[in-house]
């Protein structure tokens, strides 16, 4: 533990990542305490006000406080990121482990299905789902999860393949353990590390993708303070009210950056090759 902490602190970028992620998590947890205004209350008298002591990040085109919206937006973004990863990760991991461990025909079938989803253009899937079920954050998450899991399948499968013939797994078989036990007690715990690191990076990427979908109007719907939607709504007045687009943009940038730095750091720390 101490060792881990020392490793983390020996890399300034990882510390930065950790810091950003912490700030986001804290903002999400204590949004009502941190926010200075309601995130959705419209105040037409004070629209497009520049940043000031009253409105730290200014106000948007209907007079909502951008700072508060961004703070509340962390909740949405974190929720999207976490839920998508939490849906995609187990599906991908289990399928990948089964494919890798079972091999043969099962592997073939699973990997072909994975290929289908992998080569399926995700954004079209998202658009179709939005068209079918209506644009909403939930549907965006569904679409993202549907296109995300194959990555975990691939990663886990390849790491399963690399440990599949390990002697400790062989030993377990020699002891008479059934495949189920081997899969869950021996194979999966030893092959999800790379996928876990990927998942931590993905938290950022999912948020980014969701913002992209919101940007083209498929994601979060108007009153909700989703960053991509905020950015989208204010893009036309980028020059008159720079703050309206800049802060949501920065929020996305920093969030993704934070998760990336952290994920990269974890990778460097956990990857035995680079020790």
């Amino acid at each position, binding site marked *: 533990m101490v060792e881990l902490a020392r490793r983390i602190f020996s890399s300034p970028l990882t510390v930065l990542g950790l810091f950003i992620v912490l700030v986001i998590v804290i903002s999400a947890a204590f949004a009502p305490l941190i926010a200075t205004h309601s995130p959705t209350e419209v105040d037409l008298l004070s629209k497009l006000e520049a940043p000031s002591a009253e409105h730290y990040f200014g106000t948007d085109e209907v007079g909502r406080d951008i700072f508060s919206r961004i703070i509340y937006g962390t909740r949405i973004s974190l929720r999207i990121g976490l839920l998508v990863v939490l849906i995609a990760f187990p599906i991908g991991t289990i399928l990948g482990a089964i494919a890798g461990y079972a091999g043969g025909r099962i592997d073939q079938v699973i990997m072909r299905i994975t290929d289908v989803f992998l080569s399926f253009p995700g954004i079209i899937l998202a658009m179709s789902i939005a068209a079918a079920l209506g644009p909403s954050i939930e549907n965006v998450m569904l679409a993202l999860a549907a296109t995300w899991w194959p990555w975990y399948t691939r990663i886990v499968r390849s790491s399963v393949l690399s440990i599949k013939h390990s*002697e*400790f797994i*062989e*030993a377990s078989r*020699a*002891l*008479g353990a059934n495949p189920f036990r081997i899969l869950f007690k*021996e194979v999966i*715990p*030893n092959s999800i590390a790379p996928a876990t690191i990927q998942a931590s990076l993905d938290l950022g990427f999912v948020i980014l993708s969701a913002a992209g979908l919101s940007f083209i109007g498929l994601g979060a719907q108007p009153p909700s303070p989703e960053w991509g939607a905020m950015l989208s709504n204010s893009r036309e007045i980028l020059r008159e009210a720079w703050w309206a687009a800049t802060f949501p943009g920065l929020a996305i940038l920093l969030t993704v950056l934070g998760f990336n730095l952290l994920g990269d750091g974890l990778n460097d720390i956990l990857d035995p090759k680079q020790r």
Partner: protein
Amino acid sequence: MPLLEVTNLKQHFTTKKGFMGDKTVVKAVDGVSITIDEGKTLGVVGESGCGKSSLGRSILRLVEPTEGSIKFEGKEIVGMSAKEMKELRKEMQIVFQDPYASLNPRRTVRQILEAPLIIHGAGDKAYRKELIESLAGKIGLRKEQLSNYPHEFSGGQRQRIGIARALTLNPKLIIADEPVSALDVSVQSQVLNLMLDLQRERNLSYMFISHDLSVVQHISDKVAVMYLGKVVEIADVAKVYDTPLHPYTRALLSALPVPDPTRIKSRIILQGDLPSPSNPPSGCTFHTRCPMATKECAEIVPPLEEKAPGHFAACIHV
């Protein structure tokens, strides 16, 4: 009746090689017959890739043998149902070469040692605890070390944990697949000593696989020398080492660097490397490297014959 009797065992692997998926057949074990008596050790030596591990693994049915018969205490193992086989697994265990790879890095030593007992539903919690702790003592671990993870141990300790795991179910036969090859000499001797002690104590039988001739000779009662999936010589250890018959055995023995600077050696240096088991030479598979090879060697597959009492070799020239 020998504890283990293996007759004409074959283990062929069909592999898709490379990008193309060309199928090749690797005859890893190609008609091996051996026996192991109770309380005795059979040493199996040979160079890398000659099929030693495959032999061990197919005896345990970790891979399905292609052909042949394996009898444990007279019972045929080949074709046995999964359920019966599970029962039998208590009797035969395996110890692996790599002390780093043979223990699940994410489980504590206690969990590792407890797993076999759980799998076979042996005893209750208290019993298991006691058994594990006594085993730990045997291999020189303190109780509190049981909750450590494998990476916190040295190679020798890990190898002993591997042996302890094999012992939890109190088997009769242990197949030790190069248990000391990855260890430093000073540690290797610890493990060898432990194995010898255990054998005496529990009347264990070993199949001891190694490529190190001196180690094999130290621990074995009988030795089988393998070359390209076949046993080329098998006999009591003294016979094999003192009067080796097969030219391969002789070459092996003479190639061994002896830790004695004063000894003057006359070496038989074999030419070339071990041929690929997927494309073995015709006739006697050794003829391509054999200093004694003649024309017939390329044609006749030499049978394993009793050339001297209790001393079998597969060569037409002895």
